[in-house]
């Protein structure tokens, strides 16, 4: 791998990311599965970095999952999106940031389609007025939340307490980055680093001291596939694709995985559990799995957040070995506590016991 070659490509794909004043929109999946990540995002940007990220309770899902499960027509999702944009406009923002990759892809696609087919834009504008009596607007800048963290990666590094470095060996951690498909594959120019060698997470890893691993199936989808996961009998597809990725990354012995997509960390995490149950195989060291993180979780870790405040207890693959590797202190007793240290029991261990 020739690093300079990649750098050259990265320099071709530097999208413009405004520094401040964003209208923040949440992700359905992340709110359910990684609520602490969104909380951390807002905490870092607002409190640690002093930026303006506005959120309103009136925004909703963008309908992306329904759209990609093909249960709602394109016009419906476009009108919902127009409503979100209208809210942004209503609250006086022109920079739009979303926490979800599916949304990000869908927003980008929608804006492109409107651009290409103005008659469709006019129709949506009309729909929006008729249904919500809202004024149609389009964001000046559209960003994904990972773009923001990428943008602030050096600011975060400056405040970091820890680095992605093996405390014992002093070697950088080997980090696999997994980019959500809809981040750059549809519109490479709207992403940091393009579709083939995305830099959005690689930039964070580099800034925080880790080493990016480039394995053959790096670009492959985690296997979510919308309907291929939401219907139980289809989940073999989802599982098989993740399996393929793990088989491919295995020889590189990665220490951790960072993702920028809502679903991917869940799938890369849980399918490891399923594979270990089905096949008895694990991909990490000493029979452990490879811990999977959101970028906010990693940012939080290097900035010294309490791991359990970051929601790392909501991962099936245990993060403790990695925390120890970096040298981040944690209280194992606190891991599964409820609010205010309330005892709410703890989940059973998986059959194989070592995840």
């Amino acid at each position, binding site marked *: *791998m*020739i690093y300079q*070659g990649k750098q050259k*490509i990265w320099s071709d794909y530097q999208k413009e990311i405004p520094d401040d004043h964003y209208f923040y929109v949440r992700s359905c999946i992340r709110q359910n599965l990684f609520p602490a990540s969104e909380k951390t995002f807002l905490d870092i940007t607002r409190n640690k970095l002093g930026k303006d990220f506005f959120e309103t309770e009136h925004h909703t899902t963008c309908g992306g999952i329904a759209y990609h499960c093909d249960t709602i027509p394109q016009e419906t999702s476009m009108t919902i999106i127009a409503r979100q944009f209208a809210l942004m406009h209503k609250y006086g923002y022109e920079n739009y940031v979303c926490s979800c990759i599916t949304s990000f892809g869908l927003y980008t696609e929608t804006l492109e389609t409107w651009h290409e087919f103005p008659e469709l834009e006019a129709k949506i504008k009309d729909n929006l007025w008729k249904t919500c009596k809202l004024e149609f607007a389009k964001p000046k800048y559209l960003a994904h939340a990972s773009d923001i963290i990428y943008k602030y990666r050096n600011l975060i590094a400056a405040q970091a307490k820890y680095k992605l470095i093996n405390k014992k060996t002093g070697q950088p951690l080997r980090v696999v980055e997994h980019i959500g498909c809809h981040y750059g594959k549809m519109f490479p120019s709207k992403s940091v680093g393009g579709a083939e*060698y995305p830099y959005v997470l690689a930039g964070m890893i580099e800034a925080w001291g880790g080493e990016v691993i480039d394995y*053959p199936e790096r*670009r492959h989808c985690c296997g979510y596939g919308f309907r291929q996961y939401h219907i139980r009998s289809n989940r073999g597809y989802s599982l098989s694709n993740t399996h393929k990725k793990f088989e491919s990354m295995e*020889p*590189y012995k990665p220490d951790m995985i960072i993702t920028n997509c809502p679903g991917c960390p869940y799938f890369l995490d849980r399918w490891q559990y399923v594979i270990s149950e089905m096949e008895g195989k694990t991909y990490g060291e000493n029979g452990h799995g490879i811990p999977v993180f959101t970028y906010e979780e990693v940012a939080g870790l290097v900035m010294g957040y309490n791991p359990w405040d970051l929601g790392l207890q909501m991962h099936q693959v245990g993060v403790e070995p990695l925390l120890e590797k970096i040298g981040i202190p944690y209280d194992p007793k606190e891991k599964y506590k409820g609010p205010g240290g309330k005892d709410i029991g703890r989940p059973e261990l998986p059959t194989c016991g070592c995840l």
Partner: protein
Amino acid sequence: MKNIVVIGGGPSGMEASAQLHKMGYNVILVEKSPALGGHLAKWDRLFPQGVHAGNILEGMISNINGVKYFLNANVQSINALGKSYNVILDNGITVLADAVLFATGFDLFKAEKKEEYGYGIYEHVITNADLENWFRTKNDQRIVENPKRIGFVHCVGSRDEKAGNRYCSKVCCATAVKQACEIKQEFPGAEVFCFYMDLRMFGRGYEDLYLSAQKEYGVRFIRGRVSEVAENINKELVVKAEDTLSGKPLKVTIDLLVLMSGMQNCSAGVKVAGQIGVAGMENDGFFETKDSIYSLQQALKPGVFFAGACTGPKTLPDSLHEARAAALAIHTYLQARDHQ
């Protein structure tokens, strides 16, 4: 004596210069690089029969005896002056040319633009030009000793809207098949794969080349465009394509991947031509000719002529024919101009 400026010292520029010189014109040949020959000088052997490029080039160079030529020279400015063109070279020479011939040739498509193939990123990905250079010099770190599998990717930067080139570069298929045979001669034990969309073996002897690649050299032709190349932990390349003939995705791990970079209009030539309002066409970037059948050597501007690959991908013999045709076209033009 009438002055004719020929821009580009590749095969067509040299051939046209030689012809014009024999017709009695004062020819000034301008070449931007330190040597004559253009891409031909960098090539080892030529399809279909494997003639040595060097021999052809030698003959051409001896043929331009008496032609004034400047190496390391660029056209600094060019502008119309009545029916003539005032050409100023960056070496200080100024010529009032009665006719200008663009034989500016082509640029090879920059293979690194096809990011998914990893040229310049993966260690064992090279281009057709790199391979020719290796055939000549046997010096390229990227080519491992005794590779087990070697792949050729056709249509790199050709027939590709994303790469900005919708057209077919015409010569890459024959070049790939030729190179596949040659590399099999170098490494008889290697398996060689050609990934193609269509095999455009249009010329005399080309189809035989294809047949012998299959039969004599056992080259495996896979009908499917390479979708993605990845490097594995051993620095081998994992190539993914669809075998479209069986409708199944396919992968193969190889030790060397050769990208068949296509042709683009020479960017330096475009810059010069732009000064006198001669431009590339929107659909493919190659210079616009007076028409598409009959007057291929004439530009829309009087006194400006073309030869070779600056008006579209061409084989070497095609370019040489055009060079001779261009010489004749210039002669006819100047004669007619004198009569008026």
